[in-house]
């Protein structure tokens, strides 16, 4: 593994998910699924893995009378993402 690359974020899907989360403070699961054009199961799998790593926080709530799941990028996740993106940029610069 290249120095600085985070094993929890190295899959492009995780990078995409975490980067999307930086655009908001908290997002409802179904909205995130629609924006990322992904199935429930794929998104759930990635969110569970990132939650286990402490990179995202998941909470249950209610919106307009229906039960919902809300996702937040934690400060740990934000730092991990920043470090991972910096490592990717270094990798690109090495070739350029």
């Amino acid at each position, binding site marked *: 593994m290249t120095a600085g690359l985070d094993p929890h974020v190295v899959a492009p899907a995780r990078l995409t998910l975490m980067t999307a989360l930086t655009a908001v403070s908290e997002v409802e699961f*179904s909205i995130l699924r629609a924006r990322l054009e992904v199935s429930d199961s*794929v998104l759930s799998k990635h969110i569970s893995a990132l939650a286990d790593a402490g990179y995202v926080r998941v909470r249950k709530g209610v919106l307009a009378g229906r039960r919902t799941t809300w996702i937040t990028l934690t400060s740990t996740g934000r730092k991990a993402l920043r470090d991972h993106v910096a490592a990717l940029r270094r990798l690109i610069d090495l070739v*350029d």
Partner: protein
Amino acid sequence: MLSNMESAPDRPTAAAASAALTDAEASRAAVARGLFLPSWFLPSLGAAIAVQIATAAVGLAGAEPWLVVLGLGVFAAAAGVQLARFRRLNGVWLGGLASRVVLGTGMAASASYALALGAAIWAAYAAQWGLTAACAVAGGAAYAVSGARWLSAYRAEPAVHSRGESAVWLALLGMAGLLGLALLVLNR
């Protein structure tokens, strides 16, 4: 978007890294582009601020503290309703919108608000009621315009503008504002 990228080698190639970053930034832009303000969001906030400025000025000049409280109540109700509508419409919570646009902690909103409130209070003490109203309307309009400017900045750089101030900082600011108004009322 995600389903095609579930696995990756431990060390991506430069091309793969570049493609991954491009896709990630596109996903963030898509989330930001997909957010919309509910109808009358900014005009209602501007109107509520205008009412709050006018009632604060008249309440202070006329030693009618209930007017000051009424104006704060109108603004709090408008802010709460609009934030709830935004959350219901978009399915997101956006801290930057809540603090910079609704609570006016952005530089343009806070500066224009302070200027309009100060001028309105001065005009009210001078019994210049037309000028008081004009200052209140100008303050409300500037508040709404600064909110629209924040939205443009957010859409251009969502990661930079998505987060608002911490709850502790907002609580301190709120208490300082209430304390300032209370002192003005008591010293009247």
